[in-house]
């Protein structure tokens, strides 16, 4: 006990080595650890690594690569929408025949490639960036570290999980260079458009590669998910009861369960599409006449595909946002030096959201021709989701209340996340009401909704996580001044891009339109569309700032000198600054309390490994 420093307001507050020596337990790991057979050489250390921390970095870097590609694609199609008259001939060297140059030398984006870009943008961001790049990175990094495990339950499956993602990436990337172009039927890939090669040039080889890529991707998600669940259930250290887990772990755990239950349904939908394509089955096709030919398909239903897709698709949006929510909860609590407000309410609302996310899928299908009576149920469940979502928002705000907030890039992105989640969640309440959705469905209002609530918010959660745990990943800090500039620029920029889209949507402007000139109704917004495009370019510039900061800091960032720079109570900060394979060189810490004893009994924080003090009340 004497070794433990008593409350002070400056770091270092506790000597974690001594704490672990005193309270940790011996799992005989270090005996095997000598001459680590898993990390014998460069290849096993950095490429086919089985260390969850390296795998996390692999997910992150691959995700960043895709984020840049996906964002650049969006800039190209935004140029088309914002400046339809301007020549895009200068893009010809990069995009080749996607840019059609007329006799006057004016280059325009060909419509089929506009749709290819939109489709790729959506696919890449939803799957590769916000699923793999977000949950893949942080589940891997934080689950073992925060529950006190040496690694994942199966490091080998974990490695496979990354490499299946890599394989998916390679296939998708390759599809960009197909002669007929990549898939162009939207990220939701509704048949018959996706099932019939005659229907669109992207529905030929492009669609084949798209499906192959995503099937690999699902394998990756499932391998990861099984591992995360098993690890959380079985490898928690002594004393780490479920109710002592940080909210990050809760959210990764529930996310993995949702993924395990929903991704297989996506794969089955994909298989049936492939059967329809290759084997002439009629799961989703019926009475089609296309390209001057009546096809033989009979009895299938395109609506069936939508049920399968959205049975996956809605849970998927929570697969994206829950990890961000977990990290934001953690970051807000740590940096406001207060326990997360209403920990149990937060856990229960995650559970409620997870459950409800499986029974609301048809809110994407109010206008699909399903029986309008059925929609009644989906409206009810959909709007019920707003309740646990609101509870989470109130708890985040209450966490700030009475705090002693340390402003830095991480906490700012946490605050920004809450703002985005509010703004985007509220528009969900419009869309969830089927009556209003009649008008708003498939308009820019939906685009505004999901970019704010899912796209931007999840990115904010990811940024909060990166700035906060970068020191744990690389032993150095990212530059926080640049981080704060990145934050304010992105906050303002993202709102400038997506907020005006609400107005477009209310005016009835449909999404996925290559040009608005054909319709008087949709042609009133040339100025607004220009504004959005410029805002998007500027906002992208701020992301370059982040990328530079990230890579510069890996090698030249300020070095970590203490192992717990934020004064956080969770276990990952009890590992050495250079965290080796196995995480703790000696004993594994034992957990004595929950993760949120900040500001308790006059102490700024109490690490989870510190046992209840004499006379201490309310030990969770």
């Amino acid at each position, binding site marked *: 006990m004497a070794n433990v420093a008593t409350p002070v307001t400056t770091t270092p507050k506790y000597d974690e080595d001594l704490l672990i020596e005193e309270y940790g337990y011996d799992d005989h790991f270090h005996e095997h650890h000598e001459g680590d057979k898993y990390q014998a050489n460069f290849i096993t250390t950095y490429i086919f690594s089985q260390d969850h921390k390296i795998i996390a970095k692999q997910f992150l870097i691959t995700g960043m690569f895709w984020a840049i590609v996906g964002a650049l694609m969006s800039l190209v199609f935004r140029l088309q929408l914002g400046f339809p008259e301007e020549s895009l001939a200068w893009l010809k060297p990069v995009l080749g025949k996607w840019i059609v140059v007329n006799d006057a030398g004016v280059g325009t984006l060909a419509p089929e490639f506009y749709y290819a870009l939109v489709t790729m943008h959506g696919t890449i961001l939803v799957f590769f960036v916000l699923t793999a790049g977000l949950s893949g990175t942080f589940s891997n990094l934080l689950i073992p570290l925060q529950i006190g495990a040496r690694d994942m339950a199966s490091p080998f499956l974990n490695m496979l999980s990354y490499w299946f993602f890599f394989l998916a990436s390679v296939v998708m990337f390759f599809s960009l260079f197909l002669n007929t172009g990549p898939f162009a039927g939207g990220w939701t890939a509704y048949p018959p458009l996706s099932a019939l090669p005659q229907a669109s040039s992207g529905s030929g080889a492009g669609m084949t590669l798209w499906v192959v890529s995503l099937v690999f991707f699902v394998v990756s998600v499932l391998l990861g998910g099984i591992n995360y669940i098993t690890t959380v259930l079985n490898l928690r250290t002594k004393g780490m009861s479920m109710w002592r887990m940080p909210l990050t772990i809760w959210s990764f755990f529930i996310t993995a369960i949702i993924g395990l239950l929903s991704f297989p349904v996506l794969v089955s939908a994909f298989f049936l599409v492939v059967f329809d394509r290759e084997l002439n089955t009629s799961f989703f096709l019926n009475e089609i006449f296309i390209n001057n030919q009546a096809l033989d398909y009979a009895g299938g239903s395109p609506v069936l595909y939508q049920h399968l897709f959205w049975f996956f698709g809605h849970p998927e949006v929570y697969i994206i946002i829950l990890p961000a929510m977990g990290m934001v909860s953690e970051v807000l609590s740590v940096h406001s030096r207060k326990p997360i407000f209403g920990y149990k309410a937060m856990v229960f609302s995650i559970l409620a959201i997870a459950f409800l996310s499986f029974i609301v899928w048809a809110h994407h299908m109010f206008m*699909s021709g399903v029986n309008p009576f059925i929609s009644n149920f989906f409206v009810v469940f959909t709007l019920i989701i707003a309740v646990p979502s609101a509870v989470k928002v109130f708890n985040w705000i209450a966490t700030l209340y009475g705090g002693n907030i340390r402003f830095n890039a991480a906490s700012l992105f946490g*605050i920004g996340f809450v703002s985005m989640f*509010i703004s985007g969640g509220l528009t969900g309440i419009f869309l969830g009401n089927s*009556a209003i959705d009649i008008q708003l469905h498939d308009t820019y209002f939906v685009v505004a909704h999901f970019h704010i609530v899912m796209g931007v918010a999840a990115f904010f959660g990811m940024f909060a996580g990166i700035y906060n745990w970068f020191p744990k990943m690389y032993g150095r800090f990212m*530059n926080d001044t640049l981080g704060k500039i990145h934050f304010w620029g992105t906050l303002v920029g993202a709102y400038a891009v997506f907020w005006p889209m609400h*107005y477009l949507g209310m005016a009835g402007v449909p999404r996925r339109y290559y040009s608005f000139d054909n319709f008087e109704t949709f042609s009133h917004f040339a100025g607004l569309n220009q504004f959005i495009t410029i805002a998007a370019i500027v906002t992208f510039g701020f992301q370059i700032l982040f990328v530079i900061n990230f890579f510069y800091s890996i090698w030249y960032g300020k070095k970590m000198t203490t192992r717990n720079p934020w004064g956080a109570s969770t276990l990952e900060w009890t590992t050495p600054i250079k965290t080796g394979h196995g995480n703790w060189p000696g004993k594994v810490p034992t957990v004595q309390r929950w993760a949120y004893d900040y500001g308790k009994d006059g102490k700024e924080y109490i690490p989870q490994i510190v046992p209840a003090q004499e006379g201490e009340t309310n030990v969770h």
Partner: protein
Amino acid sequence: MTALLAVLSLILIAIIVVQLGKVSELARKIRGEEEMQLMVNRRNGALSLLFLIVFLAATIASGLYYKNWFLGFGPHASASQHGGALDNMFAVTLFFTGIVFVLTHIALFYFAWRYQGRRGGKAEFLSHNNRLEVVWTLIPAVVMTFLVIKGLDAWNEVMADVSPEEEYIEIEATGMQFAWLLRYPGPDGKLGARDYKKISASNPLGQDWTDTKNHDDIHPTEIVLPVGKKVRVRITSRDVLHNFYLPHFRVKMDAVPGMPTYFVFTPSKTTEEYRQELKNYDEYNVPIDPDDPESLLKWEAFDYELACAELCGKGHFSMKRLVKIVPEAEYQDWLSKQQSYYESTIKGTDDDPFKSETDAISEAAPEEVEDLQEEAAE
């Protein structure tokens, strides 16, 4: 050359960024970690407050600026009878969500500023408050219940199909890559049978010409409808998914190959009435062609439009038809001038199953025509 310049400027930017970062770290060293953090807190606390004010002001100001585009406000009030219910739901939802939006944002950014880390500052240990949780669970629950009930009430009314004893006009819209094909039932009030295998260049809808109900069916190029009459649109597709979308009428429904869908609505304003309403708004009093001041003003040139709202391929953005809502008399007049597709294109050609009898029919007395046609149909 331009590529080189671009690369150079990128490198320049990178260098500037890195230097900026270095300077800030130097400042941190000079002023001391703790002092620096306090300064950062002050600055970013103030920025939070500033952002709160600017953001709320911008959302409200832009909302007011674009208020004419909100559902049910300004010139874009719905032009169908059911549309008002939807616009009203929108307004009610906007009211509640607007309050929540403003209050939560004030709390969020005000707290961020108010509780910024200060010298010697201490956070309070507030871990939970069950009563508060109950309160802020119940309040949204009550609001949601209200919205659900009101919303579903509107929904079930809007989506109700016609009942057989009602009087209504049935028309048909068929999506194909990339156009809408329209069909009216003609004087018999009935749409004839179709079979997609019969589709050909001369028979775009695959109408079965042995079904005489098809013989009076019209293929107009625009939708013309009388004001105040219930319309049931039968919506189908030939190839991929499309969506029958009439923005002004708050009508939207997928066109699904092999599964006809429908939408029932009643136009409540003629095109002319709608134009007169638009006339009151400045943005509609400008020439349609900005370069030609003599051209029609926007309100004069206005027409309702039919669009596609489900991605259907590369021409998705171009599937337009005009929609004209006219007084009943004008509608009847228009209708009487339409020639049936069978009459204009099929009759007497090789596609016509009655070809051999055509002469007989044309020579026969009118009352015999029906008998002959029935015979032919069998």
